[in-house]
């Protein structure tokens, strides 16, 4: 079952001078078992939307259907814990949520909260560590002696260990070096492919959207501006420019080539397609 969002609104601090409508009627249908990117400028409502998905925020108006849960305004979600286990939410800079003495204990903290026995939780930890690229020698080390990138892996492992059906990530690669970011993104792509996990990704990086995502949702000032598959999205670079995001380098190259007088079909958005369409238009220097 996909995630269905109907006319979702969210107002912060209603009735006070700080009243602020963050979401103004969102209608979305997010397909399951795929990787979907949510993009938009700062303040467009991405983080607010994401926090509705596991019941941290309750909508001010509208409804949300996710994992068999029906969420509507003013109603406490029954069994919200189960929802939070099924929808794993990784916040921005998750490394700041680590607190235990050892990495093993920190990752096992989640499952234990959801009622898993200690021995079983530790088994799960051993399974999840290699997924994030860490080995068992880390188990008894303190999370605070790790580097920033490693801390983030531990924090993400702390969510993956819950075996969520939907994984929601708020800018998981922010502040990582390109190599670390690439590894992180291929991890999510692999989880999606091998375990059929639905992945929702808030990101600013169009290269990642292009490489790893199947669908794109563009938010702007609390509203959905565009929603499409990734191919259609990159055929319309003006969508990105309208919300102030730079298109990926390949798309920029394509634009420059078109300006220089080459004929390139709009659907050419991969390196291979671009090269193929250039064939015959470039004179050989041999």
């Amino acid at each position, binding site marked *: 079952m996909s995630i269905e969002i109907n006319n979702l609104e969210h107002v912060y601090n209603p009735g006070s001078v700080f009243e602020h409508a963050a979401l103004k009627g969102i209608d979305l249908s997010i397909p399951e078992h795929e990787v979907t990117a949510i993009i938009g400028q700062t303040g467009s409502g991405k983080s607010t939307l994401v926090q509705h998905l596991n019941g941290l925020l309750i909508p001010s108006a509208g409804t949300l259907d996710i994992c068999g849960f029906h969420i509507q305004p003013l109603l406490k979600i029954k069994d919200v814990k189960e929802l939070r286990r099924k929808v794993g939410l990784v*916040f921005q800079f998750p490394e700041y*949520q680590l607190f235990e003495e050892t990495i093993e204990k920190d990752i096992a903290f989640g499952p234990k909260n959801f009622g898993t026995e200690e021995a079983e939780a530790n088994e799960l930890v051993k399974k999840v560590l290699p997924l994030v690229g860490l080995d068992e020698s880390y188990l008894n080390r303190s999370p605070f002696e790790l580097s920033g990138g490693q801390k983030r892996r531990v924090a993400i492992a702390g969510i993956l260990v819950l075996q969520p059906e939907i994984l929601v990530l708020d800018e998981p690669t922010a502040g990582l070096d390109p190599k670390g970011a690439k590894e992180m993104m291929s991890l999510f792509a692999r989880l999606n492919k091998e375990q059929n996990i639905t992945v929702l990704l808030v990101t600013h990086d169009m290269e990642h959207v292009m490489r790893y995502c199947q669908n794109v949702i563009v938010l702007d000032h609390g509203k959905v501006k565009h929603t499409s598959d990734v191919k259609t999205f990159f055929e319309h670079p003006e969508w990105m420019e309208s919300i102030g995001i730079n298109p990926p380098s390949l798309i920029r190259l394509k634009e420059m080539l078109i300006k220089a007088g080459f004929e390139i079909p709009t659907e050419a958005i991969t390196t291979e397609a671009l090269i193929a369409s250039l064939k015959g238009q470039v004179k050989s220097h041999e």
Partner: protein
Amino acid sequence: MNRIALGRYLPLGSIVHEMDPRSKIMIMLFLMISIFIPAGVWGYVLIGIYIMICLVLSKLEFSYALRSMRPMVWMMVFLLIINCFAIRTGTLWFSIFGLGIYSDAIYQTLYIVVRLTLMIIITTILTATTKPLDLTLGIEKLLKPFEKIGLPAHIIAMMISIALRFIPTLIEETQRIMNAQASRGVDMENGSFKEKIMAVLSLVVPLFVSSFDRADQLANAMEARGYDPNKPRTRYKVLHMHSIDYVGMVTSALVLAVCIVLAVVL
């Protein structure tokens, strides 16, 4: 977290908002001292009226000022109970379960409640109408004369402004970590005692870690900009007193004077 009303700046643009922070602090001081002078019922009526005028001028809603008292309610109930046991003077009004309730116990409690209420309303008006940085600037200027006897006014003001600056950041951070831990199944409200301790730990430890990080970064950033607390510095903002400031200070000083007279006469 939005329930925390005390100490929040509300941009309502009233005449009180535009007053000089120095005069507002002085007015608050005069009123605070007046409250602690035993001037009897009429003293409190006078102070009460003065504060109500301030409240109206500052465009704050009465309910907003009262809301910041909510955390105090339990303290007041507790006080009443203690007083009922401790104060056994005055006339006996009635008795519950063989315990006599004397008039002085009720009066004493009422006095304390009135004092607390007035104090909270004053501080709420001050913080709701003055931006934290203006407030510290005001404190710094008022402490300036004490520099002659070795009081580091600038350093104190800098410490206060840094502390104030990080309150919203810390609240935001707390909210963020609470959300992150809730996503890992932490339930801050329900659960056994042991689970609750774990829940609090999972919040406090990350908060400490990030606070130390921030302090470190801030210290580095200040050093990198060549900050030296002992060097004289100019101000971006220069304070000016207007007639309303003088009116405010003179009238609040009058309130204080009347209270002293009342206390001496009675």
